[in-house]
């Protein structure tokens, strides 16, 4: 049997290259109206009065008074309203939609809407904690009490914008009582459940379909539910097809971003110069509403020892609410912030103790059987030693790091080690998602994969088909995967958290084996599989004790840079990566994830600046928010290890996020190596480098 990793042509490339692929903004429906959002111009205020102009016939205002259900976007908490009612809590918060046929008239109506606010002093500081988590492992108190030395450092990370090239969009229509929403989305069932809630509708009155998705990176995880709820409310009232597409600036100002974070680390050093204890205190800025911030925080906290095993730790953190745009899901989901802090801190500990950083890091590198940060267990083989050696060999790391440490060279090389927990944190899969997948074989022996997993460029259509075709030993084109439509596919869960191949793909593989056993030529057969948590996985959600994830993917990133002593600009020279994703279902697809992920992670580390001033995003277009271009990228070499995970399909684990999370510390360490100054903040901009070189 052929090796599943051997690459095939992606099944959706051709229609994307001919321009035929239909993204949501390309869809036209007869009689379609356009919607535009009226937004708060204040960061925090009470809405005193809204004066509307005369609304011409055929034009509509939709606001909170039109909502049949309870006014919130269903995700975890009942906190974020679909339309603001009496108060607004951030600049850009949606208040109403103006809907009609002619965009000129809509624009004219909007410019004549008067909203009278009573301003309230907005909060931009981290003082209003909405969520606080705390956990321990071992006895860190004792470690700190007995410490010979305590090393402390503070790290901070900025916003990151997903900047999918296709802005957010949704289109909807209504047939009788049934609303259908077609969107650029990652999670069809998140959208469906939110719409059911806002409409107080029946299950069969809401249908959600995925359009071709032009990039997402977490940005289309929870945010589209807000747009869908607004549109659904409008559809029920107006009963005509409506299209809501964001302009780029609108998208960048009001959609979710990666949480800025502030991380305080302390290490207790004993008299043998060992790290006896570690504490981490984390603050993330949730923005105006909690959304997914608690889950983001927990992933950050669980990553507090990175790829290392430290016996005594105490970890805590808060989600702070501020009057700024709500932050949310972004590839890595809290881990990139924490891994940056961990990787810098261990380097800084070594410098402080005058130890060889590589030796110190190797000493604490996690091994199979070690206890995780939450007192769970690394059950599967950890092959990081081989991976580190491979990475160092590929990049000539050891020679370079030594050479570049000399003054006046302005070249640097940095290496990050990291892991990423695959799938939902804790008991999410078992208790909340309970994924269900189906396979349907028709009388012509074609097999349709029925899952809610979305292809947003990462290749789900191709990899899922490969899994089924390989197990059944049939040609790829005998397997059908259509973009998810909640009327046709069961809820296999959202397309997030590096769970799609490992969890959904695992279920698809099991279902396929079932189908293989039951296979009779020419007969229609349906099989299904539902997620069952392995018995040995135990998780105490309240106390953060146990196995936070069923499996971990591992990685090594090495980045080489040059820093100009004249302009302080950073040039990427080379990037090397080694990954353990269990087993690649398609090697070229994983390589694509690797290249794209690391550039997004490295960009986060040195290039991508986004700030808000008094609650207003300052970098709100593609000109001011700098993502890498072809001119900024560097040659990349990636090596994939085979380390099959027993419960993943063909041994596959998560891969999508892993390729991003180590990028920032690798580039930051490289810059540190080049300028011989401690880097404690990302992005490491030329402005910051100048400050470090002059004063730091």
């Amino acid at each position, binding site marked *: 049997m052929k090796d599943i990793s051997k690459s095939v042509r992606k099944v959706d490339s*051709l229609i*994307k*290259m*001919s*321009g035929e692929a*239909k993204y949501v903004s390309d869809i036209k429906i007869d009689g379609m109206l356009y919607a535009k959002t009226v937004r708060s111009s204040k960061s925090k205020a009470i809405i005193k009065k809204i004066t509307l102009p005369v609304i011409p016939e055929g034009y509509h205002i939709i606001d909170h008074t039109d909502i049949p259900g309870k006014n919130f976007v269903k995700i975890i908490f009942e906190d974020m309203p679909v339309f603001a009612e009496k108060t607004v809590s951030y600049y850009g918060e949606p208040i109403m939609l103006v809907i009609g046929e002619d965009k000129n008239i809509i624009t004219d109506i909007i410019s004549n809407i008067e909203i009278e606010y009573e301003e309230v002093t907005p909060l931009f500081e981290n003082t209003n904690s909405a969520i606080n988590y705390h956990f321990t492992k071992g006895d860190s108190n004792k470690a700190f009490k007995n410490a010979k030395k305590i090393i402390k450092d503070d790290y901070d990370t900025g916003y990151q914008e997903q900047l999918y090239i296709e802005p957010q969009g949704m289109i909807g229509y209504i047939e009788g009582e049934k609303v259908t929403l077609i969107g650029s989305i990652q999670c069809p069932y998140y959208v469906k459940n939110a719409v059911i809630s806002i409409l107080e509708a029946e299950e069969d009155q809401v249908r959600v379909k995925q359009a071709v998705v032009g*990039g997402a990176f977490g940005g289309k995880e929870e945010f589209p539910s807000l747009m869908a709820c607004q549109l659904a409310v409008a559809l029920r009232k107006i009963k005509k097809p409506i299209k809501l597409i964001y302009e780029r600036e609108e998208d960048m100002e009001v959609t979710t971003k990666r949480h800025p974070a502030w991380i305080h680390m302390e290490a207790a050093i004993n008299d043998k110069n060992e790290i006896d204890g570690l504490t981490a205190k984390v603050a993330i800025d949730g923005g105006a509403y909690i959304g997914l911030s608690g889950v983001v925080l927990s992933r950050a906290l669980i990553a507090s020892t990175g790829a290392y095993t430290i016996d005594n730790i105490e970890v805590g953190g808060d989600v702070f609410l501020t009057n700024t745009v709500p932050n949310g899901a972004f590839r890595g989901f809290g881990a990139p912030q924490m891994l940056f802090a961990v990787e810098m801190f261990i380097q800084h500990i070594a410098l402080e103790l005058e130890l060889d950083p590589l030796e110190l890091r190797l000493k604490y590198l996690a091994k199979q059987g070690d206890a995780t940060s939450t007192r769970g267990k690394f059950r599967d083989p950890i092959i990081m030693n081989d991976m580190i050696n491979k990475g160092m060999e590929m990049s000539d790391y050891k020679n370079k790091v030594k050479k570049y440490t000399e003054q006046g060279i302005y070249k640097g090389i940095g290496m990050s080690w990291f892991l990423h927990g695959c799938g939902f944190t804790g008991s999410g899969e078992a208790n909340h998602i309970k994924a269900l997948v189906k396979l349907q074989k028709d009388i012509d022996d074609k097999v349709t994969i029925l899952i809610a997993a979305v292809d947003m460029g990462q290749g789900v259509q191709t990899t899922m088909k490969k899994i089924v075709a390989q197990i059944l030993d049939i040609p790829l084109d005998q397997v059908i995967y259509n973009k998810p439509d909640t009327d046709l596919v069961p809820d296999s869960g959202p397309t997030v958290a590096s769970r799609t191949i490992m969890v959904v793909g695992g279920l698809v593989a099991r279902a396929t084996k079932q189908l293989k056993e039951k296979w009779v030529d020419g007969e229609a057969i349906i099989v299904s599989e539902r997620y069952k948590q392995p018995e040995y996985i135990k998780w105490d959600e309240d106390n953060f004790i146990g196995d936070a994830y069923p499996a971990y993917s591992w990685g090594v990133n090495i980045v080489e840079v040059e820093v100009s002593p004249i302009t302080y600009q950073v040039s990427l020279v080379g990037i090397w990566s080694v990954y353990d994703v269990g087993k690649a279902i398609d090697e070229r697809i994983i390589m694509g994830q690797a290249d794209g992920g690391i550039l997004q992670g490295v960009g986060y580390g040195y290039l991508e600046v986004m700030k808000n001033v008094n609650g207003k995003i300052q970098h709100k277009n593609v000109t001011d928010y700098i993502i890498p*271009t072809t001119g900024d990228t560097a040659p990349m070499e990636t090596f994939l290890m085979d380390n099959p995970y027993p419960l993943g399909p063909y041994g596959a684990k998560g891969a999508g996020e892993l390729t991003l999370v180590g990028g920032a510390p690798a580039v930051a360490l490289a810059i540190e190596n080049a300028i011989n100054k401690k880097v404690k903040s990302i992005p490491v901009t030329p402005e910051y480098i100048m400050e470090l070189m002059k004063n730091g």
Partner: protein
Amino acid sequence: MAKIKFTLNNKVVEIEESPTARLLDILRDKYDFVGVKEGCGEGECGACAVLINDKIVNSCIVPLGTVEGKSIVTIEGFSKTKRHEVLRESFEEEGAVQCGFCTPGMLIASESLLNTNPHPTDEEIKIGLSGNLCRCTGYNMIIKAVKSASKKGDGLW
């Protein structure tokens, strides 16, 4: 309003519209060439790229009035050519397509580059594609694909 006459994907067309209309809107809305994408609306991302007289432009900031008498090729027109076939083979083989939203623009940029420089170096490819943002691929697979197309399509450009 003015009558503007031009060639669109090898067909002569005439339209009566405001000369300041964005070419992008005309292509997508009046001619239904929706393969031309809007990514940023300010000429920065390249998703809306089309060829005017064989050279790449960002149609989101091209005033319609400037295309009088010119020849415009969108991805829909370009995809029917032998050059596109060579490029798409290479893009597929190298894995240069992920979400696909930047892809039509990338192909137009590649064509524009190869038109003036049939055998570009890596550095020249980077410059040629520098106005086309991609958030999925990290660019290297795209750069390799253009390089490989320039070899395979030797003589085509």
